[in-house]
């Protein structure tokens, strides 16, 4: 019965990870493409890990702190990498569908 809950969490997590990757393909430029992987995929992985935690808990393995740590690390590193990719793209003046901000104003 409770396995059901962890199955749903894992399925939800997997679907979010998939949707994040679809976003990567579907959006028009590098800046919009960043949005899928940073947010949606991170949440998807969080769901997967929560499902795994719940399952381990039911197996009598106790509370798995490792999964919690992985979630923590993910949420710390995802925005940093997104920020760096966006910064590098701006620096190289990569094409954007919405027009780039003024270079002088930012650097």
């Amino acid at each position, binding site marked *: 019965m409770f396995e059901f809950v962890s199955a749903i969490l894992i399925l939800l997590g997997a679907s979010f990870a998939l949707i994040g990757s679809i976003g990567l393909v579907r959006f028009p430029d590098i800046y*919009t493409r960043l949005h899928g992987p940073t947010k949606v995929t991170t949440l998807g992985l969080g769901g997967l890990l929560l499902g795994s935690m719940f399952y381990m808990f039911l197996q009598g393995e106790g509370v798995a702190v490792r999964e919690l740590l992985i979630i923590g690390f993910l949420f710390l590193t995802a*925005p940093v990498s997104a920020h760096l990719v966006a910064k590098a793209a701006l620096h190289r003046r990569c094409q954007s569908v919405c027009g780039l901000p003024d270079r002088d104003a930012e*650097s």
Partner: protein
Amino acid sequence: MSSMKRWLPHPDVSAVLLIVWLLLNHTVSIGHLLLGTALGILIPKFTKRFFPEPVFIKRGTVLIRFAATVVWDILVASIAVARLTLDPRSRPAPRFVRVPVSLADDFALTALAGTVSLTPGTVSAQLSADRRHLLVHVLDLDDESALIQDIKQRYEAPIKEIFQC
């Protein structure tokens, strides 16, 4: 005091490193306690030049409330972005927006930029050289001033309170 400062420039960071090490290894054996302590001393020592000022979290309860808000916003944001992704008729209107910030602490700025990247359709792209503006890329913008208000109230204000800067 000065020797303590030299060996432990960030005592709280050292403590967190030790705890994380023990949790990762799922043990409190003597060997890992020693190894964790060594890491807790060495890592802040070698990374000190990246953050010379000590890190102070001054309002723990605000931090917890803030974390809850952010987790909730990540959920809402992800569903919104997922909908934009899956709906074939959606034509998102992406824009760059400059958000004025007034945080004095590097750590607080990092926290704000990271939070912005994780929440509703925004990725922080660049901090201006004078640290007064954060350039944010918005996936689907409809009201610029509302977005700026939102970031300032929802994220900047609590971060300011947590780090007291």
